[in-house]
């Protein structure tokens, strides 16, 4: 027996909104970064679910690509976070990074 599509979509929606809330509400830059990954993976889950539902393998292949790109993105993102933390004297508070404030 297979899991109905709706369940998978509901789980993905919950994950996505959790990630979005994390991005919007949390201050710690690492948590924000993790939340972004969470949103990304919610999307991946959608892709896999639809792929299985339609019996088309393209979606799953696409997910592999997304995972690879996400890994690269994580490397770059973490590097940026490291240099930010150094620049702002050991602070991880995202609200302090407000150079773009008008």
């Amino acid at each position, binding site marked *: 027996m297979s899991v109905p599509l709706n369940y998978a979509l509901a789980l993905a929606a919950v994950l996505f909104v959790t990630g*979005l809330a994390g*991005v*919007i509400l949390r201050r710690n830059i690492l948590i924000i970064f993790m939340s972004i990954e969470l949103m990304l993976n919610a999307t991946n889950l959608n892709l896999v679910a639809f792929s299985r539902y339609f019996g088309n393998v393209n979606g799953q292949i696409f997910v592999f690509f997304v995972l690879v790109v996400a890994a690269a993105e994580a490397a770059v993102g973490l590097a940026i976070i490291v240099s930010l933390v150094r620049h702002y004297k050991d602070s991880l508070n*995202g*609200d302090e990074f*407000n150079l*773009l*404030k*008008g």
Partner: protein
Amino acid sequence: MQSLIWIIPVAPMAAAIINGVLGKKLGKATGAVGILAVAISFVMALYVLAGVMAAGNHEGPLADGPFYQWIVSGAFNVQLGYYIDPLAAVMLIVVTSVSLLVHIYSVGYMANDGSFWRFFCYLPLFTFAMLMLVLANNFLQLFLGWEGVGLCSYLLIGFWYNRKSASDAAMKAFIVNRVGDFGFTIGIILIWLTFGSLSFTTVFDKASTVEVGFLTMITLLLFVGACGKSAQIPLYTWLPDAMEGPTPVSALIHAATMVTAGVYMVARMYPLFIHTPVTLSVVAWVGGITAIFAASIGLVQNDIKRILAYSTVSQLGYMFLALGVVVPVSGIFHLFTHAFFKGLLFLGAGSVIHSVEHAFEHAGVHDDPQNIQNMGGLRRYMPWTAGTFLIACLAISGIFPFAGFWSKDEILTGAFVNGQYALYAIGLVTAMMTAFYMFREYFLVFEGTPRFDTHHVHPHESPWWMVGPLAVLALLSLVAGFAVGAPPEHGLFRNFLDPVFAPVLGAEHPETAFVETLILIGASLLIAVIGIYIAMMMYLRRAWSPQAVSARFPRLYDLLYHKWYLDEIYDAAIVQPTLAFARFLWGFDSGVIDGMVNGVGALIRWLGQGLRRLQTGSVGNYALGMSLGLLVILGSLLLSGTFHG
């Protein structure tokens, strides 16, 4: 002869360029460059004169050729060329000789000036422009020279530009001349439209075929230009102010040459003017009224140079009077002699100012070195200047046998013989005034007891650089009259210029009886002597008190002293309204035009001030904004039913 004529204007132009570019390095050598160049022009002018004399009675121009293709545009074709006839030859001699003497004089006069080289850049440049004007064989080249001398006049009046009065005077001269040139330009345009050519020969040939009314308009417009350049009423006000320039400039530009350009131009255009009796009477009356008007102002002025300036205006009026009463040769003759004695008067005045200024400075006196009331008895200190000045005074007063006698007498005789008795009377009264104010100046400056502190102020004779030209000009003022003017009506000068004017004037050339001539000469001599006598009684013998005379006619004295209030009238009627209008336009420009441009900028900035609050710099806010935006888009798509499609 023809192949070398181009050297005459080009030599001073080369000097102006050399002195302008290398002036700072050359220093005093710029004086030598200028003198050399003008000397070359002078020699060439003599060569041209010899050529013209050798040609004898030759109708039309002896040489009328191009040496440079200037403008070609469709049917409009202008070449720089030369038009050589006796009239041009006379002008060439006057311009180059006076210019040469003034160049030499300036080496002494400007010796201590920091801008020596700049002076010797402008002066040859002026000579070049004046020679272009004289040599021109078409109207556009004439206009080129005309504007060129105007520019140099502006530059040289404002030579000491850090003096406010000098730069004001320069602007005044330029702007007033612009009024005249406006008429002149329209006149030239009308000539082009009427004749289809700007060449003198073509225009003169066709002159009789054009309708008189139209020709009158053209000549009147040309005369407006002449009024500006030659300082006639109502455009004369710039010339007295032009005395702010260095004195050699006043001698060369504002006495001997440039201001006579208007006279020369009218004489050159005589083939046009002769067909228009209306214009001729306008010329005569403007000249006559200017002559007596300016002379009346000269009677009471106290500035040594301003008296001479009003005298120049007055004498130029004489020349126009001569042109107007159809004795153009006499007008040119007066131009010729006037160049020498008025140049001499100015250079003499310069010598006085130079000496008195230094003496005052040395003694720590702060009196005005140009006010003749501060002088007196200078003959003992500067005998050469005094002697030459006296000769010039006698010449301008028209005393036999000095130069002015011959030319002025010819004009008065011409006016009388041609039936212009009113103008003759004006001329006669002017002659008396002239004699009076010149000798008033002479007595107040050189005779009597000094009115400065002789223990501390020690004027001395000017250097030979300056006295030399004075002596040469004095000699010319002495002999230039009878050498070429005697006997009256049949002198060398008249015979020389006859080929130019005889064909134009035709048969109307009334001969005067010998007795009549003698009576007229006697009258003008008598009137000059009366003028000198009054000046002598008032300022030398002190028998008649000048104060008593001015107290007797306070209104008249006040009117003359304030130059008929003409400057004030112009200021109130023209200058102030123009300035007010300009201020209004300025207000419109800065308020409305700039206001619109600045308003757009201010609006954008105000919007930016408001919108910058959106940029909080907080990542969370941006993320919220993006999500909300996405929600709105998705929501609207859902509601519009796109997904059910």
